Each structure stands twice: as structure tokens, then as C-alpha cells.
């Protein structure tokens, strides 16, 4: 699967409380969650994020609460891919389970700048910064992860008998 988008860049330890503050967890509506995504970290995110955009971040992205609302809010806001130096483990699992593509690539996360255009081919483990021309290698997604993401999430993959 290939993703192309413009980059929105954040730092280390972006926690699930800033991705979607708990005061909005009284709903599980995806659009409503997306309308508050990143609110306590970056008030401009919701107005500037475009369909297909890519988030890059530092260490331990998604730390804190197990709320699946966090990857749901990111996905529903239009983000196609999150590239980070590392992810917190519950967030990592949740993102795949709901069909949000994520990949660990410390060099790409470090060097790619805000606003760069990036193309990622995760089946083959290649991230290309189109703006600078630089290319990065990552571990390709295992087949079962590809299937989950292609089907839009674990449960949908099970229903579609793809898993």
C-alpha cells in the first residue's frame, strides 16, 4: 500500500490525552472525535489537516491511555499514515486494529520537515521524501497487518474473511 501526503510534524511523547482529550470521550462518533483531534497540543491541526496528510513524531507516540478513540480521531481527520521514532505499545496495536497505517522509522521521523511531501510504500518498506529526494528503509508490514489495514480494521478483515 502506498501513501502520499504532506507532513505535519510533532515531538516526543505525544500522549493520547492531547490526541483526544478525555472531555470528548463521552462519544464514540468518529467525526466528532476528529473535530477535537490534537486540540490540546495544536489548535491549528483540525483546520489545516488535509485528506492523506502524514504525521511524523518522535519517541513514544500515543503514550498513556488505551483509548482507541485516539487512532480513530487521527484516521477520521484524514491522516493516512503516522511515522514515528517509536510508538507506545497499546497505541501501536490499536492503530493497526482500526486500520490506521503506522510505521516506526527513527531516521525519517527525525529528518523529514513540516510541510514536506512524503511517499511511503509500506509493503516494500520504503519511505521517500519527495521534497528533498531522500529515501529511508523500514521493515515491510507483515502480510496479516497489510490485510487488516486494507480491510479498514481487524473486525472488518474478519467479517470479510480476509483474516
Amino acid at each position: 500500500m502506498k501513501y502520499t501526503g504532506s507532513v505535519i510534524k510533532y515531538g516526543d511523547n505525544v500522549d493520547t490525552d492531547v490526541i483526544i482529550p478525555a472531555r470528548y470521550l463521552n462519544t464514540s462518533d468518529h467525526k466528532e472525535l476528529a473535530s477535537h483531534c490534537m486540540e490540546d497540543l495544536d489548535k491549528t491541526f483540525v483546520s489545516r489537516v488535509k485528506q492523506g496528510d502524514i504525521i511524523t513524531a518522535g519517541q513514544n507516540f500515543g503514550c498513556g491511555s488505551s483509548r482507541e478513540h485516539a487512532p480513530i480521531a487521527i484516521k477520521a481527520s484524514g491522516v493516512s499514515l503516522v511515522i514515528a521514532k517509536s510508538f507506545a505499545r497499546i497505541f501501536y496495536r490499536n492503530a493497526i486494529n482500526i486500520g490506521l497505517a503506522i510505521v516506526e522509522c527513527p531516521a525519517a521521523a527525525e529528518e523529514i520537515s513540516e510541510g514536506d511531501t512524503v511517499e511511503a510504500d509500506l509493503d516494500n518498506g520504503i519511505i521517500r521524501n519527495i521534497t528533498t529526494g531522500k529515501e529511508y528503509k523500514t521493515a515491510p508490514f507483515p502480510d496479516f497487518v497489510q490485510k487488516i489495514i486494507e480491510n479498514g480494521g481487524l473486525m472488518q478483515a474478519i467479517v470479510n474473511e480476509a483474516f
Partner: protein
Amino acid sequence: MGMTMSQKILAAHAGLDSVKAGQLIEANLDMVLGNDITSPVAINVFNDGNASSVFDNSKIALVMDHFTPNKDIKAAEQCAQTRRFADKYDIKNFFDVGQMGIEHALLPEKGLVGPGTLCIGADSHTCTYGALGAFSTGVGSTDMAAGMISGKAWFKVPSAIKFVLTGKPAPFISGKDIILHIIGKIGVDGALYRSMEFFGDGLQYLNIDDRLCIANMAIEAGAKNGIFPVDDITREYIKDRFKGEPKEYFADDDAQYDEEYVIDLSSLRPTVAFPHLPENARTVDEIGETEVKIDQAVIGSCTNGRISDLRAAAEILKGKKVAKGVRCIIIPGTQNVYLQAMHEGLFDIFIEAGAVVSTPTCGPCLGGHMGILAKGERAVATTNRNFVGRMGHPESEVYLASPATAAASAVTGRITSPWEVMGK
């Protein structure tokens, strides 16, 4: 090659003689947990999956604790959706207002988790039950839904870090000071994806409430789980309580650990985590002359809402007054803790000191309700996270501390060591 405690529990539930770090396994679950925030998402996924039954209606626990008693209409709808699901599938361990407590205080107390249990919960602090020698970890709502349907989950077998706790802690040094000290040392991703396993002669000085508090915050170091070996303190706690068959798993002598830390408990001092990460730990002495004035003190949560926690707070507050300008909110973790504290006369102490006592709820810990902070306000709290906006306005601040330190701070109006207030 030997196995850690965590690996042995995973192997046993996967029907394997042995497992090693990094191996992917599918294991049978003894308990699947959700709350009023994560269950509705899981129920939607359950329905999207066209599921028509649960794997075992006695091995699922649904606890209405986060935004309850319902804080608004939307929260009420989420509880109503979960209540309908519990009714439809005859979920035996559905805990609504009147029976509920904060989930991680409630499940151990009700004997739904114990030595050798394998539990997943759609709440990150599910790692709490490692205090009883269980393997227990937080997951999201999709994993919860899959667990409710199949009774199984896949795991990547974690490697582990060994923490050897030695010596006897000083008075008023509790599990909270120990875990804040450890997170301060290894950082918020210091145990990422790994188990934190606790050993040492110092364990004899840690009661179950201290251990539950320590295991509870393993996630704040990024860990998959935290776990204690079963001993007489555990056995005494689960006696006449645990509904399952206790199974004790001990680490092999040749079990491999990525790292080992020795922590001398006798050297620990009252410790506070400054905003906005639990790793920003400082001892109260290190705060120095700069006063950290507070507007609110919260004593409760799945980390510190148990009877020992309330007793520690009462010992400090007895005969004293909460400082002018400070709001002190005390939240017993469960109905039983509430009753016990009431019978022991702790509520008289709290109310005479000028504190309020709430019904059990997660409430303020996650900025839900029952004590939200305004812009620029500061709270000292016995909760587990001090992220930006965690307890309210994004420009408010949370300082994490033990119940004794929070109570001492409530009395002086600034972050204060219990030793100072008690004249040690």
C-alpha cells in the same frame, strides 16, 4: 532457557511448555474488562463483526466508572448502551452505580483476578493486577471486542526488566513514592513493550495496596505489564476472595532480564512528579525554597483510592485543616472501601478538616468531572498521569504524589512532605 514470571503465565495460557521473548502466541483469556468509555466502542466493533454471543459471560467485566454517576447526556447514553449489552448477553460481572467502584480497585477486591490470571482490559491501567501475580495488560476496544467473542488474544511475548527492592521504607513512604522514583529513573518509555518484574527482601514491607499502586503505574514507564511474585501477603489477601483457582508462577533462576535495577527502599524520600510527564520525579527536598502553591488536592483513583491510601491521608489530616484556598477532594475507590473508611471514622476526619468525600469515580483523574481545573490552576493528585490538560484546562498543572504527600500539601497549601507536617 529459563522464563520470567510473565512468560510462564503466557506459556501456560497458550498451551505451550515454554515461550521466549519476541514470540507471537495466541492465549486463552481468564478475564476481559471494559469501562463506560471503552465498552461502547468495543460493542460497536462486536456488532460490526456480526457477533451473536460472548465466549463466557462470567469472564467479562464491565465497570461503569469513568463518567459516572453520569456526568452528562452523552455519558448517560454510553452507560445505557453498555447496560443494554450486559442485559442482552447476561454479563455476570456488570457493575453499575451502587455496585461499581474504580475498575482496578474493584476487580481485585471482588476476587475476579488473582495469581496466575491472564487478563486483558480496555483500559491502560489494567496492568494493576500484576500485584497479585497475574499477567494483565491494557488493550484497546477492538481487542476487547475480539476477546469477548473468542476468549483469546494474541501477544508478542515480552522481555523483562528486573527490579530488586531492598530494605525497609521510612514512615509515609508508600508504593507511590517507589514507582514515581522508578519512572523518574527509567523514563516514560524506559520499559516500552517489556515486563517490569519486582523482587527483593523489600517486598515484605509492601502491602497489597502498595503493590497494586506500583503495578498500576507500570504503563507510565511504557511497560506491557508489571508483576510481583506471590507471597504470604498475596495469599492472605486473596483468601476467601479470589473466585478462581490460584496458580503461582515464579521466575526461573536462569530467566533472562534485559536490565536489572536495585532500589534501596530505605533511601527513598517523599517523591512528586512535576508536570507534564510522570518521569519528572523530584523528591520533596529537591523542590527547595521555591513554593509550589496548589489550588486542589485529589486523593483517590485506581492508583491510590484504597483503604491504606485513605488511612495515610487521614493520619495526616487528623485534627488539622485544609489550607484556605485549597479544595481537597477525597474519592474512595469502591463501595467497600467507602464503607470501611466510614466505619473507621475516616470521613469524620476528612470532613472536619474541610475536605469533601465523593462516591467512587475516575472523575477528575482524566479531567472527566468532579474536580476540573481552571486555566492556570495547580493540583497535587494521587492519580497516575500529569499530561497537558489531564485534569482540565490545557494550561492547568498536575503534580503526582502519594496520599500522605497530597494530604500534607492540602494542609499547607503548597507541595509539602508528610514528614514536615508530622514533625519527623
